């Protein structure tokens, strides 16, 4: 095959032409901001004026307890919500996979719907439902499950629980669909062989399903981690800008507040963004090493 033929040259050029607009967009909206952020990060900004502070922004970050608290919340949500959600999604996927084929389609839709709802709309709705005198508390009080209303939104512990529940509600279906697809690709002969050998369903799950689904789990884990590091909408709207107090403040929300609400300090916000990206990268790397090494 002569790769230097005119046809291949034409394909090559045509290929580049098609990719060109995307490359232009990428350079404009991804590369340029990243490069110009290098300029922002060494300066302390106040609206339109700025002063050079070198690594001063990073030094300030080391002292900023609120930022550290925000990062702590990000980690809290990561380590509680992601395992919970992945486990739930796995179980649901396994159940649906073995269930009645007719119902599978409709249940899949039901579980998947939450993730396509508008972030803002569902946050507002949840906020109304979870007020001290809102629907959830009223139902639980009438059913005598609780004696006094739970402060879903005005107690830091419960507010964090609310965020975890909201995130799980939203993303379980999304991950479940991926796991379902992964399950389809597992050869049923393996299960049959396990049955013959006398393995229980639980054993099959832990010894066959989980290891074979590892690539999909890795994908879910990595995307969920980076998503949780950027968590913004739920703390902003559902719990009123990181409330109560700073009980659900997250890194992205704090960065936004520094840049747009409180100070117009874009330099500090950029510096914090660098740290968030760094942490996301480290987590992704660790996860890939732990979960993804086998296929290499």
């Amino acid at each position, binding site marked *: 095959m002569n790769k230097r033929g005119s046809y291949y040259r034409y394909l090559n050029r*045509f290929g580049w*032409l*098609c990719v060109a*607009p995307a490359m232009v967009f990428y350079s404009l909206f991804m590369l340029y901001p990243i490069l110009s952020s290098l300029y922002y990060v060494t300066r*302390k900004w*106040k*609206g*339109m*004026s700025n002063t050079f502070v070198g690594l001063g922004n990073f030094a*300030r970050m080391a*002292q*900023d*307890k*609120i*930022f550290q608290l925000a990062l702590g919340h990000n980690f809290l949500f990561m380590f509680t919500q992601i395992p919970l959600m992945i486990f739930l999604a796995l179980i649901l996927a396994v159940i649906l996979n073995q269930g009645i084929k007719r119902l599978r389609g409709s249940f899949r839709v039901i579980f998947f719907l939450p993730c396509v709802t508008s972030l803002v709309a569902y946050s507002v709705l949840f*906020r*109304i439902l979870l*007020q*001290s*005198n809102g629907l959830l508390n009223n139902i639980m009080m009438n059913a005598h499950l609780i004696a006094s209303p739970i*402060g879903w*939104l*005005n*107690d830091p512990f419960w507010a964090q629980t609310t965020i975890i529940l909201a995130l799980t509600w939203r993303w379980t279906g999304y991950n479940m669909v991926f796991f379902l697809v992964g399950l389809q690709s597992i050869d049923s002969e393996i299960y049959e062989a396990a049955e013959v050998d006398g393995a229980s369903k639980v054993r099959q799950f832990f010894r066959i399903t989980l290891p074979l689904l590892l690539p999909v789990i890795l994908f879910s884990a990595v995307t969920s981690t980076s998503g949780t590091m950027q968590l913004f909408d739920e703390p902003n709207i559902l719990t*009123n*800008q990181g*409330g*109560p*107090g*700073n009980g659900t403040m997250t890194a992205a929300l704090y960065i*936004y*507040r*520094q*840049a*747009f*609400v*409180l*100070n*117009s*300090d*874009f330099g*500090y916000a950029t510096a914090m963004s660098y740290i968030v990206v760094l942490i996301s990268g480290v987590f992704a790397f660790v996860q890939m090493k732990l979960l993804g090494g086998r296929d290499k």
Partner: protein
Amino acid sequence: MKKGLVFALALILFAALVPGLSAADAKKVTVWCWDPNFNGYSMKQAAAVYNKAHPDVTIEIVDIPENIEGKITAGLQAGGSGLPDIALFQDFRIEQFLQDYPQGFVDLKAAGVDYSKFAAYKVGPMTVGKSIYGIPFDTGSTGLWLRADMIKAAGLNPDSYMGKNLKWSDIVKLGLAVKAKTGKALIAYDTTNYDFIRIMVQSTGTQFFNKDGSLNLRTPALKAAIAQVKDLNDKGILYLTEGWNNWISAFNNGDSAGLLQALWIIGTLKSKPENAGKWMVIPTPLLEGVAGAQNASNNGGSSWYVFASSPNKALALDFLKSTWASSTPAALAFYNDILKQCGAMGTYLPSRTGTNYTAPDEYFYKSQAVFKDFSAWMEKVPVLMYTANYQTMNTAVKNAVLPLLQGKTKSIDDVLTAAETEYKQTSGQ
């Protein structure tokens, strides 16, 4: 051939997505504000006045319910793109913007607005050196709003409270009585908001900052205010809500028997016609034991600003000057109308001759002449110093007070220390 066709189609689609360059609409003025019942309504009335003389001008009022300052910051950073011609700013936020974006706003004094006709305390925050930047809008004169029908249901006579200069200890007694007989908490309190404490502190004329702009929270007024709020909460007199909308539904739907707020809440109150004849307002209670305490305070108030990036600056200026800063009969009639309809008490001094300023308002209990009262209380309000860090201070104190109400923080001193720490870290000072 096919590939070329597909490529051409893609290019056309792409070109169609790129927003067309529209010529700046020569006769259009865009205004951004929040609260369509109050600010939106007032601006609409002003537009109607202007359109009588200039029917070819379109004045578009856009409602921005959440975080208008964030949007404006983004626009100012972008050198003005995406910004409207006129926007509404709360008085305590504008100093930060004037400091951060000195070129972003139009100097209205230089454009010929006569500021001697506006209340001095409103002109203060919008002045930088020799330039004055805004058109003052409403006053934030406060009062304690009470549901007369619920007080009656508690076996008390609402008329005995009307117009009385009460102390907070009197309010505590009232709250306990109402709670005992009707089970309802007297005052709705928004835990995500700092208004309540701010109103109490500012009723004494105490500032949150020293003259040099540094933070000063350890004042007798703030300590007394926090202590009073804790006391009210411990006795069950406060109805705690999370968020502005929840707070509004708490008093509009009758879950609580009152609220402490400025007169600009009238628009929200009147949006519920079924509550007509039930609301009364009494003077802001006195914070006992603090020097300079009065039965009057201020909360908020906003003003209109013109952006320097606006392509229709001259038109916007002409609009503002002929309506908000004008003494023509049409303009004065408009000030009179917005006062009654939504409680927008302007700070344009000639407008105070309007009949509604002294007339009874039949929406309220026994047709109370609320504006006469608010006008009188407004006279007592001292000048407040906001500074560019007001919002940061706001957030820090509000975050520190909530754990106290929930019993997690033990002493007021701890609250103040926590607030000072958070202020220091968020402001980087």
